């Protein structure tokens, strides 16, 4: 992001250009040689890195968007307002990244609009397709006032915020509810193909509850990043409260998750010496229980860096969870081996790079951060260290 603002960081600019060039090459190869030419996907492993990482983490980024709009516009907790715009922007870009990844991944992307007129409401993918389309539109509309404001259309903006924004927010939260959970619904139909530590008939509920924890954590991470790049952030006390909330949602999630494992007699798989158990404990133990304990601790929560770190771990944990469901558990359940090809990584990284580039442009040309005095960090503030 800062690479776009500060010309002297030419090394990163070069890296950026190289990534984009590689992305373009692979992209062209994808549409001249088919998916087989650029990926290790195969009949027994029809979904890989792009679905497991790009789609799932794009949606993870977006979880911050619905959480913050719910907090600010539905629960009217005004203190969170300073980062509404940047969080909504990130969510919008997260969705654009999902759409980009899908356009590469879909075998017949020119038919991507088909779910509009060809309906199958028994398909989780149908629900997902509609959610992506509608929520991307909603996020675009939530983002549009920034452009209007930039163009000086004060009156329209005022009207927009008064009448449209509330409706958009409720729609956005509803669609997110459906979308986050429908990612789980996708896997409900393959009980015999997922490792029992991850398969559950209540996956959609688990995905939704964890999306709330993820969204709360994401808000903190975004505040941290926006402070680093632009000197704008939430007040420390809010972040502390946010950490507490994350911890409680996580606790709730973990209780349900373990209850579900016990009910399905699957907990025993967690105590074996194999890959499944290892991935499970990295995900649940290291990236969920550890940050939860940190966030529960009154003392640790008040250290801004520890707090941000723990929240970042939660975000990682949730992305890891989604990836585990979509790839690890599937591979362990079916015994298929799959290692992404280099070109799959190029697409994944390229999509993220494009997203970041767009964010940089938006921040530069649009009023993403509301005007007003930029907080001058006090010297005792540990974040200050990071600005240097």
């Amino acid at each position, binding site marked *: 992001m800062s690479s776009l603002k500060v010309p002297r960081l030419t090394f990163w600019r070069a890296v950026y250009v190289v990534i984009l060039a590689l992305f373009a090459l692979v992209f062209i190869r994808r549409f001249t040689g088919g998916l087989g030419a650029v990926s290790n996907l*195969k009949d027994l492993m*029809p979904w890989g890195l792009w679905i497991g990482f790009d789609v799932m983490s794009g949606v993870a980024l977006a979880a911050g968007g619905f959480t913050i709009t719910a907090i600010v516009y539905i629960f009217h*907790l005004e203190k969170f307002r300073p980062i509404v715009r940047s969080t909504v922007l990130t969510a919008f870009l997260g969705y654009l990244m999902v759409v980009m990844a899908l356009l590469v991944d879909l075998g017949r992307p020119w*038919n991507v609009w088909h779910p509009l007129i060809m309906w199958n409401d028994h398909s989780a993918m149908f629900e997902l397709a509609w959610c992506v389309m509608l929520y991307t539109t909603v996020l675009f509309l939530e983002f549009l006032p920034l452009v209007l404001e930039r163009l000086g259309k004060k009156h329209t903006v005022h009207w927009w915020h008064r009448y449209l924004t509330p409706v958009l927010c409720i729609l956005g*939260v509803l669609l997110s509810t459906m979308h986050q959970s429908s990612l789980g619904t996708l896997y409900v*139909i393959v009980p*015999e*193909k997922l490792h029992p530590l991850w398969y559950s008939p209540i996956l*959609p509920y688990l995905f939704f509850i964890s999306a709330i924890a993820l969204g709360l954590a994401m808000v903190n991470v975004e505040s941290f990043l926006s402070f680093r790049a632009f000197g704008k952030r939430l007040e420390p006390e809010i972040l502390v409260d946010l950490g507490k909330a994350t911890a409680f949602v996580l606790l709730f999630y973990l209780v349900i998750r373990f209850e579900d494992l016990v009910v399905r007699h699957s907990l025993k798989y967690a105590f074996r010496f194999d890959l499944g158990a290892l991935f499970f404990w990295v995900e649940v133990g290291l990236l969920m229980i550890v940050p939860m304990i940190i966030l529960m601790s009154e003392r640790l929560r008040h250290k801004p860096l520890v707090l941000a770190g723990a929240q970042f771990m939660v975000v990682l944990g949730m992305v890891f969870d989604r990836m585990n469901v979509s790839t690890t558990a599937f591979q362990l359940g079916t015994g298929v081996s799959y290692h992404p090809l280099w070109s799959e990584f190029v697409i994944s990284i390229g999509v993220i790079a494009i997203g970041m580039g767009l964010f940089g442009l938006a921040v530069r040309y649009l009023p993403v951060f509301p005007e007003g005095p930029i907080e001058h960090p006090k010297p005792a503030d540990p974040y200050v260290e990071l600005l240097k």
Partner: protein
Amino acid sequence: MSVFAVLYDQSKCIGCGACEQACQAEHGQRPHKPTRLDANSFNWVQDLGKGTYMRHFCMNCEDPTCASVCPVGALQKHALGPVTWDHTRCIGCRYCMMACPFEIPKYEWHSVNPRIRKCDMCIHRVSKGLPTACASVCPTGATTFGRREDMLAEAHRRLKEHPHRYYPEVFGEKEVGGTSVLMLLTRTPIQDHLPANLPKHDMPMLTWNVLGKLPEIIVPWATFLGGMMWLTARKNKVAEVEHHTTEDHTTEHHTTEDDHE
């Protein structure tokens, strides 16, 4: 229940591969000996050793998982029995491949206009009243074709007559809610490389258990959100009024794009 079904009797199969050739000819594919199912092999006779063979092809389920998961309804179950794919609808998401409990749908990985490929139960023949290509050429009667209830009755007759020859169930009678392909096995499904422990209920219901509840969840949820929005806005307004009346407030800076005064 579909009208027709294919009955495959493993005990009668001699692995001659006539059905493979007939299937390839019927679908205009280059003649070859398949070594697995793929985009050009809808039918594969697997050599299990010791003179045992096993045919693999789409089960043409009664309530097909593939059709239920397809977002655009590209896969369809026909009343006659076949489950077919429609190139004018498919978006290439490959969810059908993920979801099919028999791992049947295959994809053209090196095509720029890829198709989902699988046995279509010879719909072009079946709809003309002909048996499937594989059934019509089988020299031993291992693969036969007919009305589903007749095929099922025949299968049970053989099971009763030679209880020691077969695995004691007609594979496909109840698996995933029943299929239009019925199999008499001489070994267990696992030994025959068929998926084991398949539920006896149809799979689409698993998803419907969730999706069907959506309206019940969404409506109260929307109401709750709307209610909260109104309530908290009101609360803030009340607080603000009180704030103003208590004079000695420090001027709090409100950010610009507030949607309320």
